[in-house]
């Protein structure tokens, strides 16, 4: 299992590494990182409808948590023997599909017509990765924290493209797309995969400049409601959302 994880994580660089001579030089200077992650995601839109029998999000999309995929790029601005301070940006994609509904005059609910909610999360983040355990004791664990400003660009759609709803009271139309801002805080733990095969790790650094490969798992608490605006919905999950992924430090 351990070997399989290492092999998977280093797969991109393995062909080049396999063709190179044994490397004895010191590791190259570090200056940033790139990571990809997957996270089950479900926005807490229904928090507005605490007493509703049929809250809109759960009624249309159910209680599942479609995967959100995200990528982040970080620049290391402060590297010490204890750890690394990173700043960076990220973006991702998430979409949920469901069926609309029609309520007959007799109260019967009939489902039909596909509808979706799509979110493109972008963010600017600051994070600190505590590398002391690995650097000092060779324990392959690196805890980290991260804070981020979020901008969730979203769009809802029905069978005719982007949704639009007209209020029957005042005739005002509301287009079902926009951007909602918020914040997030993350606590995580990364496993340093290089510890399981140090020679291959050095080879990767020599060949493609990847100093370290991390398999991480973290929990994020967030709020995406325009910082508490009364005219905004809540696009963040109601729970500590977990995510897992790979980070390449270079």
């Amino acid at each position, binding site marked *: 299992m351990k070997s399989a994880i290492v092999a998977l994580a280093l797969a991109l660089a393995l062909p080049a590494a396999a063709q190179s001579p044994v490397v004895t030089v010191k590791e190259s200077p570090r*200056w940033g990182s790139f990571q990809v992650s997957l996270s089950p995601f479900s926005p807490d*839109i229904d928090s*507005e*409808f605490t007493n*509703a029998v049929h*809250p*809109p*999000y759960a*009624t*249309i*999309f159910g209680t599942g948590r479609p995967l959100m995929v995200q990528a982040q*790029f970080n*620049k290391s*601005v402060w590297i010490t023997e204890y750890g690394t301070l990173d*700043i*960076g*940006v990220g973006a991702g994609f998430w979409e949920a599909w*469901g*069926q*609309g*509904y*029609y309520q007959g005059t007799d109260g019967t609910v*009939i*489902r*039909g*017509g*596909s*509808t*979706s*909610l799509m979110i493109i999360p*972008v*963010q*600017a*983040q600051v994070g600190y990765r505590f590398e002391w355990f690995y650097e000092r004791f060779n324990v392959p664990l690196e805890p980290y924290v991260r804070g981020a*400003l979020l*901008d969730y660009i979203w769009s*809802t*759609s*029905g*069978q005719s493209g982007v*949704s*639009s*709803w007209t*209020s029957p009271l005042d005739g005002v139309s*509301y*287009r*079902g*797309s*926009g*951007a*909602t*801002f918020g914040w997030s805080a993350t606590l995580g733990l990364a496993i340093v995969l290089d510890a399981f095969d140090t020679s291959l790790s050095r080879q990767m650094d020599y060949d493609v400049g990847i100093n370290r490969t991390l398999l991480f798992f973290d929990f994020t608490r967030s709020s995406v409601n*325009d*910082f508490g*605006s*009364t*005219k*905004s*919905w809540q696009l963040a999950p109601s729970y500590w959302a977990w995510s897992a992924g790979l980070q390449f430090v270079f």
Partner: protein
Amino acid sequence: MAGPALAESPPMLRRATLLLLLPGFALGQTTIAGTVTASVTTQGVAGQANRVECDSATSTATWNIVATGVTVSTGDKWRLATASSSGCGTTVPTTYIQDQLATGSTQSISGVFVRPMATGASVGSCTQVNDVQIALCAYYLPGGVVPATVQVVTGTFNFQLAVPPKPVITGVSPGDGRLSVAVVPGTTTANETATSGVTFTVTCTPPGGGTGITGGPGNAGNIVCSGLVNGTAYTVTAAGTSSAGNAGASSDAFGPSTSTTPLPFLNFWDVYKSDGGVEEGGCGTGGAGALAPALALLGLLAARRRRP
């Protein structure tokens, strides 16, 4: 094989054999570099004719000849003929479709009847089960006469005679004024063999057998009938059409039922706003919020530029 056998023959027999073979050598065949293609005027799918066109006395095709290495002079002709898929004959045929004055090494000839194209290639029946591939042959006749050395430009043409099997409707999803019909190709039978290039059309018929509304054509998958009346339970059928336009049998009927009844379904945004959702769309905190990621990116770029 002819060479050694001839050398070992008695002199008289050898001489007689040579005399018999000489005309054949003189009338050798040269395949001219280039192509011949044909498109039937009625349905226009290049290189194909369907059952109706194959059997029609009036359907015509346009032949396009592209020949290289031929210098066309006044009085030269193209002799248009067809042959079975094994290829054009080594002699200029005396039974042919038509002779056409050559105007150049690249020439488009319209009004070529399709039925003679079929009979010339020995297409037995225009309703046979499988497609029939034939050869198109444009023989070059310098001065309008049959030359000693046959020169021919060749191409291929398909009498697309196979019909698709009846498809299967696996489900119908109602929408606002429309039905989305999930169609999968049917299983081929002895008489329904077309599978490649088949497209499907769905028909949504209101109660009482009124005029049906069609959706498609499209590939297998979801095909939509739109412009339907909400609240009306429709009967839905689907049919396949082969690549050249041979119509297949209709599927078994689906509905009428609640799933074939279009209704003004509310989408997610409709439901959210109807329930009193506060979100109004657009950018919540204006440009300031949107600037945050952009400023971070600029900071990164600046930091990178300052590196020694």
